């Protein structure tokens, strides 16, 4: 295999493709689409994050404006956590529109994350979202198919292939050369997008957050490069094994439709079918049932709490709750929060496992579908995937737990033990400076190592695909026929 020949084929392919006027029209349209999706992505990112940050501040102001009051009232006053979109979300929206952005955090209640874009949408959202990632995952492969489908098949049809091969070129040089030529063309489309993303990252540079954005972008960029090389090679291979350009195009379009639309949809549908999600009622009542068994603080005759009371009395050598050195109902609530939170976490983890099983069907399908592989790498590395959503949920629930327990501690410490229960009025209150002392929720982006762990199978499958395509190129170059 001579590099000079490969270069010759690549250069020849490049000249042929770029000689067409229609090619520039395609490039122009693509660049316009890039510009539109970049502008709307950036605009949306800024508006959304501004809205969320503003409301985070507003919610906090009203939290701090609370007067002296009973801490349990503050536990229920609660606070909001708003999800902040990661900067790379401009490139790949991922699940952003489907995950919800707001959760209300209060004592002994795990509220759902509400207000996703999908819940405000009229159903149009399901046609897809125009993001830079969509252009690379869906539109660019099609353009490459259109540009390269006749690369070998036409030479075969008009007989130039025989001449080329008889003049000393090898199949291997031809296939690698044309693949590289088509890959070079794909860069014409890819580089503008990459530049847009780099400029955006520079503009939104935020030294406070260390989210490894440049490393993330590097992994995304490299993966797309490998992906584009794969698509280019597959185009050339299909062209080489088809006897007419028309057949090559039809095959390539079939592949596109199967891998981009049908397979991903069916994989997710199958996951959903095999691992059904419980209904919300079943989920909640399972927690409730266990709670009643373990200890229900709302039941005055609950054995767990009666036992607890007796042992606390024994330790402090008293017979009435009002004789204890701390506020007993704060103590009971602390215990209740501990029990219900642990139960909730257990059941929620089970639910997330079901989701993960559903998604695993998609994740493993990336080994037979490079389009799924790149999609997963792209959104995981952008921080807009399922794991970053769950990460947000977990962080808000941790915060919620700390908030309620901090309020329960305040109650135990500062509210007179003589007061049996009740949290209204001005008689038993805690100074309002405590509200300010409790830090506001701050959304930290998902850790890079976590994203890496999530993206690992997909990254691996991209590597497999890269090796597979090169293997296939070599294999076909031995088997291919010139006629």
């Amino acid at each position, binding site marked *: 295999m001579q590099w000079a020949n490969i270069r010759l084929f690549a250069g020849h392919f490049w000249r042929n493709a770029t000689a067409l006027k229609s090619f520039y029209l395609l490039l122009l349209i693509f660049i316009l689409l890039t510009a539109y999706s970049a502008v709307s992505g950036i605009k949306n990112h800024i508006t959304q994050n501004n809205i969320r940050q503003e409301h985070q501040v507003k919610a906090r102001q009203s939290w701090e404006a609370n007067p002296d009051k009973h801490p349990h009232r503050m536990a229920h006053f609660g606070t909001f956590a708003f999800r902040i979109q990661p900067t790379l979300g401009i490139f790949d929206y991922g699940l952003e529109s489907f995950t919800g952005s707001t959760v209300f955090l209060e004592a002994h209640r795990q509220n759902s994350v509400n207000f996703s874009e999908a819940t405000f949408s*009229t159903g149009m959202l399901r046609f897809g979202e125009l993001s830079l990632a969509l252009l690379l995952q869906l539109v660019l492969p099609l353009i490459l198919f259109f540009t390269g489908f006749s690369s070998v098949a036409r030479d075969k049809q008009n007989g130039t292939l025989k001449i080329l091969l008889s003049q000393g070129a090898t199949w291997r040089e031809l296939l690698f050369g044309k693949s590289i030529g088509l890959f070079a063309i794909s860069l014409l489309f890819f580089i503008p997008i990459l530049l847009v993303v780099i400029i955006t990252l520079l503009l939104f540079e935020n030294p406070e957050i260390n989210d490894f954005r440049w490393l993330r972008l590097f992994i995304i960029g490299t993966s797309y490069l490998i992906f584009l090389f794969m698509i280019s090679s597959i185009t050339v291979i299909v062209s080489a094994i088809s006897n007419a350009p028309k057949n090559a195009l039809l095959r390539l379009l079939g592949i596109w439709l199967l891998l981009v639309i049908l397979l991903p949809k069916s994989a997710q549908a199958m996951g959903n079918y095999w691992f059904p999600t419980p209904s919300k009622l079943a989920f909640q009542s399972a927690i409730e049932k266990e709670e009643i068994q373990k200890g229900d603080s709302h039941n005055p005759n609950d054995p767990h709490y009666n036992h607890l009371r007796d042992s606390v009395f024994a330790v402090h050598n008293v017979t009435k709750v009002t004789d204890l050195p701390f506020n007993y109902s704060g103590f009971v609530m602390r215990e209740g929060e501990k029990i219900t939170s642990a139960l909730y976490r257990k059941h929620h983890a089970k639910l997330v496992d079901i989701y993960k099983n559903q998604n695993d069907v998609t994740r493993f399908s990336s080994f037979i579908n490079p389009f799924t592989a790149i999609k997963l790498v792209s959104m995981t590395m952008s921080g807009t995937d399922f794991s970053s*959503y769950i990460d947000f949920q977990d962080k808000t629930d941790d915060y919620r737990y700390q908030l309620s327990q901090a309020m329960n501690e305040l109650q135990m410490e500062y509210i007179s033990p003589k007061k049996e229960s009740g949290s209204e009025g001005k008689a038993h209150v805690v100074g309002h400076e405590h509200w300010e002392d409790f830090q506001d929720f701050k959304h930290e982006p998902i850790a890079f190592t976590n994203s890496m762990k999530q993206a690992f199978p997909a990254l691996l499958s991209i590597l497999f695909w890269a090796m597979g395509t090169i293997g296939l190129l070599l294999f076909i170059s031995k088997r291919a026929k010139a006629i």
Partner: protein
Amino acid sequence: MLYKLFLQQCIRSKEVWISLVLITLLGIVGIVIGNKHLQRQQDAIAEVKTYQEQHFDRQVSLHNDDLGLLLYYAKFAYINTLNPLAGLSIGQSDVHPTVKRITIKTFEAQKYDTDLVNPMNLQSGNLDLSFVIIYLFPLLVIVLTFNAVSEETETGTWRLVAIQSKSKLRFIISKLLVRLILLYTILIFLFFIAKLVLNLSMDVQFFWVFGLSMLYILFWFTVSFFIISFKKSSGFNALLLLSVWLVLIILLPAGINAYVTSKYPMPEALSTAIAQRDGYHVKWDTDKRATIEKFYQHYPQFKKYGYPTDGFNWLWYYAMQQMGDDDSKKQQDAFNKKITLRENKSNQIASIIPNMHLQLAFNQLAGTSMSQQLEYLNATDAFHEKLRLFFYPKIFEGKLANTIDWNQLVPEYYKAKTTLKPTKAIAPLMIASIVMILFSIPMIKRL
């Protein structure tokens, strides 16, 4: 005779057979998935029915002497029964819960609580029959028609046809007609299966869904007719038709969605949430009498319960809860207005894009559209109000829980109303087809 020949010619090729079988299979898969969706809802309804009884029994046994406390916990189910057509067009019913359980406390805080959903499922979208019709049938139209004329030219039979047939136009149209009937047969077969599996009743809505699907397929034939009448090569036709498909089905809707989202952002949703929280919680520290006054402004009929301001009491408590709804009214209205704006804009744009129009029309017919979801939320609001008015006096009078007939408080049902006007539904598809045909006429004259 001629038609029989055309049919044979059409289904001779292996690719055509494969694609016909494939689309039928996918259609059936779509119906099965839709059925599963309906089934899941049926299960949830059965669950909530038995659960509600046990739930009340337990609450009454725990809090018989404190009805106010009982209603702090008691949840009442309100069910948005799905039209079986929702199995054909799942629409927004996968993201919005169809079984809601609410307490008589602030409604706004419970209004938007989501169901348990896996966002990955939402993103990949449902593979229901509406997807097969909207996305895949057009592709089949393309596969069947792109070379209907060019094939004759490429194999050299066109001259023969030109001499022998009376009218070249009639020749092309009959060729296309055979293919159209073939696709209609598949469509009828799929709807027949859907009727059996999903237990659909043959009502007006059913025929609307079917009729609109037929029109939609006809629209794609007119597009194809327009393009193949240029008499370019098969490759060129395929390429152009697929580009049209890509633009109409993927790029335009995605672009329009981006436009609508960025034109109408929804800060109102978050403002409502905060206003609702503050509306209620701040009242713990403000003058009790003022809160009760405000409550009586809303419900003058309860004035007779007076102004109990000593210590904790349920009248004051539920007055505070009420303020969560009342004080966030302005934000709620702004929020609803925004949603309606979005809905209107989308409908407006969709009316010139057949596939988007069809999706929205399907959802509307199946009761799974955004606007019907809002109507359901409004009905839930009314249901909530009914519960409040039923329980408020009993709580304020300090009645015991066992004086209430809890068996009578069973889950209630809501049925979505379809307000699709026939002319409005058909017109966009009709006009689109006619426009394509008008475009084609000058082309045909040159044939």
